[in-house]
């Protein structure tokens, strides 16, 4: 643990940017195209549920990070092994975020630039900021939260005035009934982006007043969930369900349609900027979680873990898959349906159960 303190505003900004992160630019929940915005709202409820579990563990162990209470609950030897696998998961997941962003950037406008250059630049920025400590990333989040809101508002106004929103694209609602909506909501959207909130559990113990954690977190989740749902609904309105379902980068496609009086057009930079900001925070917070776990396991200073963990993530992101198709296939099969549920949901629930059992046994004896 570092000697640092963050306040509720900063936590809010971090969770918000983390959730919005890449989820706003990527298509989520393929199964239910027109109803995707509903699926996001349903997933939000599950997401809040997950957050309450993390918050419960945090309240029980307010001074320990994620890896700390894993050791406290499961005992040192088992805890160490669980932490190791958690570390690998966090690095893997972060490598995926990095790869995904770089691939999107390469497809969107850097088709001549090697992937590794894009990834390396991003990881350099992440390493630099994280090596300054959690307080700095929290403050950067506060500033970028304002910038992000400004970008979002401006983008929305442009789309509104371009007269390209067609509400009829949202209908028929629930064309195949509620079932596909729920299937999309759980586990897929619940896991990505909400299940990844487990990384925030390593940041919670820095909070100045631990009671603010629950309220702030839930507000941040609701705010980000609503904005996600809204923006995906707008994307469907503008692009139509077919194009939306097929594109890899729907937000980008949408913004290219902006045209006000033949003067305000080609606003791609807005979306690219939003993607970079979102990806940066997603990458940084995942990496901070990985650094925190690694530092706890190897008894090192957290800040000094930035370089080794960062470089590992960079190399892993390049070696993950040999091309985009393979990467996507792996993502669908492995990440959202196996890995994130294990670490984002089953592990915390398991921890709560063990903790409760131990508490009861302890009381009796």
């Amino acid at each position, binding site marked *: 643990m570092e000697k640092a303190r963050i*306040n509720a*505003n*900063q936590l809010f900004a971090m969770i918000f940017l983390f959730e919005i992160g890449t989820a706003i630019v990527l298509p989520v929940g393929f199964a239910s195209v027109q109803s995707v915005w509903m699926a996001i709202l349903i997933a939000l409820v599950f997401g809040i549920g997950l957050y309450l579990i993390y918050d419960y563990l945090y309240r029980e162990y307010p001074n320990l990070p994620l890896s700390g209470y894993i050791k406290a609950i499961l005992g040192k030897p088992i805890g160490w092994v669980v932490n190791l696998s958690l570390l690998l998961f966090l690095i893997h997941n972060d490598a995926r975020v990095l790869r995904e962003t770089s691939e999107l*950037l390469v497809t969107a*406008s*850097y088709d001549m*630039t090697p992937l590794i*250059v*894009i990834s390396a*630049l*991003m990881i*350099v*920025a992440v390493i*630099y*900021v994280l090596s*300054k*400590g959690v307080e*700095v*990333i*929290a*403050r*950067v989040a*506060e*500033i*970028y939260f*304002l910038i992000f809101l400004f970008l979002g508002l401006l983008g929305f106004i442009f789309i509104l005035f371009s007269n390209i929103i067609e509400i009829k694209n949202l209908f028929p609602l629930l064309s195949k009934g509620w079932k596909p909506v729920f299937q999309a909501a759980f586990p897929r959207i619940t896991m990505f982006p909400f299940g990844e909130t487990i990384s925030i559990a390593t940041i919670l113990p820095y909070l100045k007043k631990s009671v603010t954690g629950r309220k702030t977190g839930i507000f941040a989740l609701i705010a980000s969930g609503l904005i996600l749902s809204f923006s995906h609904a707008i994307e469907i309105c503008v692009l139509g369900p077919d194009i939306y379902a097929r594109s890899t980068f729907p937000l980008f496609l949408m913004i290219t349609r902006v045209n006000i009086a033949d003067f305000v057009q*080609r606003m*791609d*930079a807005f979306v*690219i*900027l939003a993607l*970079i*900001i979102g990806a*940066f925070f997603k990458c940084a917070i995942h990496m901070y979680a990985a650094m925190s776990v690694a530092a706890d396991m190897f008894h090192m200073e957290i800040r000094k873990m930035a370089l080794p963990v960062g470089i590992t993530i960079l190399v892993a992101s390049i070696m993950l898959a040999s091309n985009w198709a393979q990467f996507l296939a792996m993502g669908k099969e492995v990440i959202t349906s196996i890995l994130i549920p294990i670490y984002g949901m089953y592990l915390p629930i398991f921890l709560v159960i063990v903790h409760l059992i131990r508490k009861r046994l302890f009381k009796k004896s």
Partner: protein
Amino acid sequence: MGIPFGGYPMSFFRNESKKNKKQSHDQNENTDLRKSGNIPLYSDLNANLDKIKSELGNSSDLIIRHFELGSFQAQAAAVFVDTLIDNKLVDEFILGSLMINTAQESHNNIEADKSVFDFIKDNARTIREVQVVTSWNELIMSVFSGDTVILIDGWAQGISGSTRGGEFRSITESSSQVVIRGPKDGFTESISTNISLVRRRIKSPNLWLEHMKIGDVTQTDIGIMYIKGIVNDKLVKEVKDRLQAIEIDAILESGYIEDLIQDETFTPFPTMLNTERPDSVAGNLLEGRVAIFIDGTPFVLVAPTTFFSYFQSVEDYYQRFDIGFAIRLLRYLAFFISLLGPSIYIAAITFHQEMIPTALLISLAAQRDGVPFPAFVEAVMMEITFEILREAGVRMPRAIGQAVSIVGALVLGQAAVQAGIISAAMVIVVAITGIASFAVPVFNLAISVRLLRFLIMVFAASTGFYGIAIIMIMIIGHLCSLRSFGVPYMAPFAPFNLPDQDDAILHFPLWARLTRPHLTGKKNNKRMKNHLAPTPGPEEK
């Protein structure tokens, strides 16, 4: 300007290190006097004078005047440094009060059995401040501060009268921070003048001033000024602690102090404000900051500062608030243009041609048709040329200023385009960037922008807007990691503080800026009474 390096052991070359050893040895001998300087004076006048002469190496501006004290029949001598004193004061002190008056009044005193020493001390009426010096240390210090020391035969004590004076620049308008509306007086090189300029503005007993001397050789006067009750006491203590920790041979300018007490050295961004304007210092003191006055320079340091305080000009507060607000926004815009101007041009022309309107793109392509270099090389060339021109413009003698501007404008601007070395659009971009950087009101920050601009250009040339976005994240991360005397540099945005938003990027009317900025404490932060907003008076019937 001679910057003393003698005391530092430099071992780049063997020969030099020997020389330096000798030098530092010499210096030790000089400073010996100060260290063992608490030895008392002799009681024999001639012995004292001989020692003074030998200690000061018979400096030619050291004046020793012998005289006899009227009816006391005592030999005395006045010791002073000719170049540091006010001639009129010394004449009055020695001639008026000691030579003539003693002759008239001494009779009564001899009868009253008063000693000659006390007599002089009590009767030096023409002098504001009289002190008794007993040791060599005190004697030397007061002589070199511009005092006149009277030594009397038979007394192991001296009387030091404050006769400080000499030539100073008079108060003129500050040349580095000019305003259209507002007071025109600027600080000078004399610390006492500077302090008086601020004191005249804040007539409060709570305006406290603390004094210290820094610099083993220069013994520079430093004044720490703050308003008790508004300032946070921890901040004052922190400033004093940092100043007291300084052990250096010389302080020649406020930059020395700034370098030694700032929070972070490896940053292009300034964490202490320097100003030549007394109204700016007064305003900052009233917001709970600390001012550090340094003798010998018109620049006064103010701490703590935040990033946003570098965009505040004193004139914002003297103008109508809406105008002030608009102009402040313009300054932020200028800051971003000067930081990102060439980078955005490079990124757009190299990577994101699709973002440029077609008509403009065709025109740009036509201009760049004969240009042999990529946009990045072009931009770096022009930026460096511009920086050289600017630097030359600052340092060169005024008389040849016109030559440089002709060469700069015609040869490097127009001719370079006509010769096909650079494109006309690039000249425009560089010119706008250059002018925008002058709109940043604090010169410190403008310099840091000049540096960072080149770094951002490299990123823009390698990966376009993505590179710019990444380097901006890193710069903002860097800014967020900075502190100025415990205050986060990006306050009030990170950490966010709602009451302080009234005067950061936004600028509220005076009656709406109710509280002082939240710096390190929340003490006494109410600035004025509520509801001072002007309303129209009762209607006439």
